[in-house]
């Protein structure tokens, strides 16, 4: 019981972190059909700048804020310098974002050094709750709570506000939105920045969770996010949450029972989805 509960919490926490990364990817894709291969780079930049601030000030909240700002700024830079020049050309977009990913990854090594850095959760999130015979690690619960909060916030923004309406309409038909006098390029930039901020947030939250950060983890983790985006349906926000939880749980349980196959199991889920439901589990609706 204890084992299953802790694996579930573990899986949910991983799932939430992947979700934060995948949410930006899927919205950006839905809106502009750009698949941002540099997303993992934003993730590690969030992690490293956050952890750096955390080292210096010892305040985890401040670390989160700095990571989010890093994400917003990098998102803006990526959109303006990398995506915009090749706007409308798919192949070039895909090629260029991967190049930027590697540049971001190597720049991390230049700025922060190439070695693995250890990170532990802040004091107020350390330790665990005891619930009967089940031990719940505080930090993991914290991630899960943050993840769900963000999901519902974004969900409400998408469903209930005018901005959300524009974004959803843009996902369905961006030409039409443009015809109605809305600057879709501006909307895209904003969504891109928010997506980048979510990726950076995911990075800084991931740091104390995994205990270490290193430059290559951006690419590794973004592969999981890609898998999630495929499973959930490209462009589907809700789909990415469910798929992320699915992948997180599968990852957690396999890592315990058959560690060698923990990446393979997600590939397997993706393969099955691609064969039987290539549009993803959730179809993109408004």
């Amino acid at each position, binding site marked *: 019981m204890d084992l299953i509960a802790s694996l579930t919490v573990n899986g949910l926490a991983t799932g939430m972190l992947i979700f934060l990364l995948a949410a930006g990817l899927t919205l950006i*894709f839905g809106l502009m*059909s750009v*698949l941002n*291969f540099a997303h993992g780079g934003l993730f590690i930049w969030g992690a490293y700048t956050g952890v750096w601030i955390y080292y210096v000030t010892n305040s985890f909240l401040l670390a989160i804020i700095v990571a989010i700002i890093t994400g917003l700024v990098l998102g803006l830079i990526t959109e303006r310098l*990398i995506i915009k*020049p*090749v706007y*409308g*050309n*798919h*192949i*070039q977009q*895909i*090629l*260029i974002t*991967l*190049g*930027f990913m*590697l*540049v971001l*990854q*190597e*720049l991390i*090594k*230049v700025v922060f050094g190439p070695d693995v850095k250890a990170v532990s959760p802040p004091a107020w999130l350390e330790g665990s709750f005891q619930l009967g015979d089940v031990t719940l690690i505080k930090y993991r619960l914290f991630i899960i709570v943050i993840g769900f909060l963000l999901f519902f916030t974004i969900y409400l923004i998408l469903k209930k506000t005018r901005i959300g309406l524009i974004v959803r309409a843009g996902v369905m038909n961006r030409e039409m939105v443009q015809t109605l006098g809305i600057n879709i390029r501006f909307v895209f930039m904003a969504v891109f920045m928010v997506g980048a901020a979510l990726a950076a947030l995911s990075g800084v939250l991931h740091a104390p969770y995994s205990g270490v950060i290193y430059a290559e983890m951006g*690419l*590794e983790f973004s*592969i999981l996010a*890609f*898998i999630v*985006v*495929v499973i959930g349906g*490209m462009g589907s926000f809700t789909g990415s949450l469910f798929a992320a939880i699915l992948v997180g749980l599968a990852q957690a349980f396999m890592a315990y029972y058959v560690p*060698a196959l923990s*990446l*393979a199991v997600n*590939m397997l889920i*993706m*393969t099955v989805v*691609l*064969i039987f439901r*290539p549009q993803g589990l959730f179809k993109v609706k408004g």
Partner: protein
Amino acid sequence: MSGVIVRSMSKSNLIYLGVAAILLILPFILTGRSIQFMITQIFIFAIFAMSYDLLLGYTGIISFGHAMFFGIGSYTTAIFMDRFDASFGALLIAILVAVLFAAIVSFIVGILTLRLKSHFYAMLTLAFAGLFLVAAEKWRTLTKGNDGFTFKVPEFLRDSTTIYIVSLVCLVLIFFGLRRMTQSPFGRVLVAIRENEERTVSLGYKVLHYKVMVSVVSGVVASFAGVLYMLSLRFVNTSVFHTDVTIDVLLMTIIGGVGTLVGPILGAALIELAHHWISGLADVHWIFERWIILYGTVYILVVIFFPLGIVGTIRSKLSGGSKRKSPSKKKAG
């Protein structure tokens, strides 16, 4: 008209054969082992880059996991040479297994994703390559993990001049083979898919068959390049599966010129020389150890400003700056 084409083609064939002949004599002039080794590397990566060009340049398919096929060829050869005696027979079996394995993997990846939008192939290949990298790191009994291992190759291939000539001959054969293929009706359909997939479908071509077929050919050639790489290096570790390898081959193809086959060869030479030069500079300043930054930046700039590559740009200048668009231009979706 067709006479002109035949004559101009045989003229270009003559040039290529002439260059090949010069390269064939070269090792007897440049007898240094390290220089021969470096040129051999160029040949091998040229083969690898041509296989990539089939996908990106001719068909408009992006793969982010091409290192996977290179790695499959490399590890198959290394494991066979290590486990069995380093005889010629074992090598032949290794080549056969490497090629078959690569064919099966590329077939599976292709059949899964090539009917979908181009992102899927890029993503799935990236993910698959990641899987192979993890497998190579974790399956220590077979691969000896991250550290890799050295192995022996058949006696007659140990001489650096021999492996140079073998690689050159393979390069020439594969170059003409692939050129024949791209100029055949099959190759024309590939280009049609690149230019306008919907139209090709409505013309009645089974686009998926063509795409899967070209991805299998590409995977097989890449795997073979991996085999040659191992024969020249005689050491394997997990770095053959790294994204760096894919980015290298991307850069070679794009800088040289997509959709040209000659371009990737030129690109391979440039990138290999740049590697050599930059690794020499690592003693000068530590920033050169982070050469991927430089490469990545060059790569981004090339994609934005120079999408035709060297050979592509020269060709479009020669044809009078005609209305030929970027070959990587493709309709969204």
